[in-house]
């Protein structure tokens, strides 16, 4: 039924000369478009929207996962806001955003800007090596870094070998340095992604732009801000989106390296979701944390893309 109607409207559109009055201008969306997106939309609804809706519903109940749940309205959300430990966890997530997103983007920008001024032999090789951390499973990365950070692990051995004994410490057991130590692993993982994205972006910049800038007397810094940075706007937006999401949903790294310790100095919201749902049987509360986290990720990524779009307009 819908198909025949759609076919007719297509036929009608073709029968009219393009741009002739009355009908829609060419290129305007038509209802038939919904048919095209239907398969993907169904999958989206089935595996994303329904579970999300279910999580929202769960977050309004006090439920241990087994017995009949009790409706508590927004109480779980009030608890999320009031819970000091949870606020600390969101604070840790903010620190992790610096390590996961801000640092890798800044360092990658600096590296890429340098690379544009010098021809580098074996670029493909370096690109692959830098991208490897992205390909390796996070659990493997975490296990490896746990050993690197061990009290008698390679990092401390190196520090002691060069006479920096004072800096050697049990990194993951140190109340000040555990969070930065975990965060640095994120920097290491995300850096490759940023560099590869930015290198791709830079390769699209026509050489004439650099030449023009140099003819106008721009130095390396000026060149970076007037040529490279504006051209990379979209890549930066993509890199920030991906890395911020990675920082906020960080679970495996913390689970394997510190389990939130020492004390509670590396707790993160995703770990709280897991703990509440599977360890202490507070499914409703876990869902509330998860929904809050989802909303936060949505707002942040939406903001990032908005800023990038507005800048380019």
């Amino acid at each position: 039924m819908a198909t025949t109607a759609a076919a007719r409207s297509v036929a009608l559109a073709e029968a009219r000369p393009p741009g002739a009055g009355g009908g829609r201008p060419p290129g305007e969306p038509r209802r038939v478009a919904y048919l095209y997106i239907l398969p993907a939309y169904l999958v989206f609804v089935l595996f994303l929207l329904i579970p999300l809706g279910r999580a929202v519903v769960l977050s309004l109940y006090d439920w241990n996962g087994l017995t009949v749940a009790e409706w508590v309205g927004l109480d779980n959300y009030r608890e999320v806001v009031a819970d000091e430990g949870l606020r600390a966890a969101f604070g840790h997530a903010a620190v992790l955003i610096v390590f996961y997103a801000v640092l890798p983007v800044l360092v990658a920008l600096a590296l890429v800007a340098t690379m544009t001024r010098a021809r580098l032999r074996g670029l493909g090789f370096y690109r692959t090596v830098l991208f490897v951390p992205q390909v390796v499973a996070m659990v493997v990365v975490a296990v490896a870094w746990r050993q690197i950070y061990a009290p008698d692990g390679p990092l401390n051995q190196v520090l002691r070998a060069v006479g920096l004994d004072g800096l050697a410490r049990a990194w993951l057991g140190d109340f000040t340095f555990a969070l930065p130590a975990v965060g640095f692993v994120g920097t290491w993982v995300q850096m490759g992604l940023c560099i590869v994205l930015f290198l791709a972006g830079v390769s699209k910049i026509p050489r004439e732009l650099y030449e023009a800038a140099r003819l106008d007397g721009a130095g390396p810094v000026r060149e970076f801000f007037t040529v490279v940075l504006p051209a990379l706007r979209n890549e930066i937006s993509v890199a920030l989106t991906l890395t911020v999401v990675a920082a906020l949903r960080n679970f495996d790294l913390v689970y394997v390296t510190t389990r939130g310790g020492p004390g509670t100095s590396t707790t993160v919201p995703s770990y709280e979701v897991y703990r509440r749902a599977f360890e202490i049987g507070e499914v409703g509360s876990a869902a509330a944390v998860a929904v809050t986290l989802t909303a936060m990720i949505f707002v942040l990524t939406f903001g990032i893309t908005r800023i990038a779009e507005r800048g380019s307009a």
Partner: protein
Amino acid sequence: MNRLPHRTALAAGLLAILAAAACAPGDDEEATGDQTPEPTSDIQTDPSQMGDVTLVVWDQEVRGGQAEQIETLNAQFQEMYPNITIERVSRSFDDLMATLQLALTGDDAPDVVQANNSRSSMGAFVEAELIIPLDEYADAYGWDERFPESVRAVASYSADGVTFGEGSLYGVAQQGEMVGVFYNKAKLAELGIEVPQTWEEFLAALETAKQAGELPLPFGNVDQWPGIHVYGAVMNRDVPPDAVRDLGFGRAGADWTSPDNLAAAQEISGFVEAGYFTDGFNGAGYDPVWADFGNGTGVFLIAGTWLLADLDAALGDDLGFMLPPPREGEPPVATGATSLPFAVTSANEHPDAAAAYIDFITNADAMTIVAENGLVPSVDAGGQSAQSTAQEEVFAAWATVTSQDGLVPYLDWATPTFYDTIAAALQEMLGGQITPEEYLQRLQDDYSAFVGG
């Protein structure tokens, strides 16, 4: 303008989903409680009289000796009672933890399951009436005589699942486990120390080892839970076992801020100051530390008997095991429990057969098979022949501590949130971030909020 239909479609979709999902979670089940088959007053204990029965059994006996003993026992059971078919579903512990809850609430629930003792597993299943009390079977099979009280306590709950450690029996287990002290005999000989018989001698031995430049107590606590076990070994010297049980089972009437608890917290802080533990223990892993102990680093290792097989393989005749030595004149007390107890589900239609199976895999003959596979039998451990001296020492220690009712529960069982509370607070106290008083107050806050004190 053209964005509007787009948005309404999305909104309509969301609404539909919310409406579809908007029924209280958990009530779409047929109320499972009503279906609980009441064990008939005259319990049939002869499996050959039960007709053709199929029992679906979920266990987590998947590693080495564990798998062998359960396979042997299942085969023997079926040979003896051909009318009963055992359908075994074996899963790793983590896998079992993740799937058991769904399986029990599903349409095709298993008949016999291994359920973790903790409040969040067994306690929740009791509350939801997914597993049945076994008291009548305990009477019929004499489990009360076979299993010492402190062993039965770790699988006992009140009918509402709130009180842990007493009430009805919900499961029985095949193997025992406890936190004791492994030691390196060669190191002791080198240092000229006798095996400590009392806590005082143990403390002296730690000091001697430290002075001699050895690592007295290897300890890796980045994983957070090992600290709870080490702390328990110290706490059990200072706090009477009844108080430890009330605290560990989360029952009213005890007090974390009592002077003897303070003494324990200060004593373990003293260990840190004296440098008895691994340097940087809060950042050291549990596995590397015991592996190093197996390679000859460290004199004493406070750890669970689950390390026995691995340490035996590494140290051989140099490995020794003892209960944490009690103070002069005090009875032996150790933190411990059983392997996961076997419980009978309420979905099961043949509770008699299920109970008969559980009895079969925990009777005296079964215990011999458990011991033969290098595991600690939950009862009759003393009489079993062991394959190594350390194993013999573990068996003897288990027999001693259970026969004198000296087994106390894991401290993190106390309340649903207690694991996180004590794990974090202990790391902070041992790391010098908070005082023993602040540490105990954190524990007391969690405990009293739960027991309503």
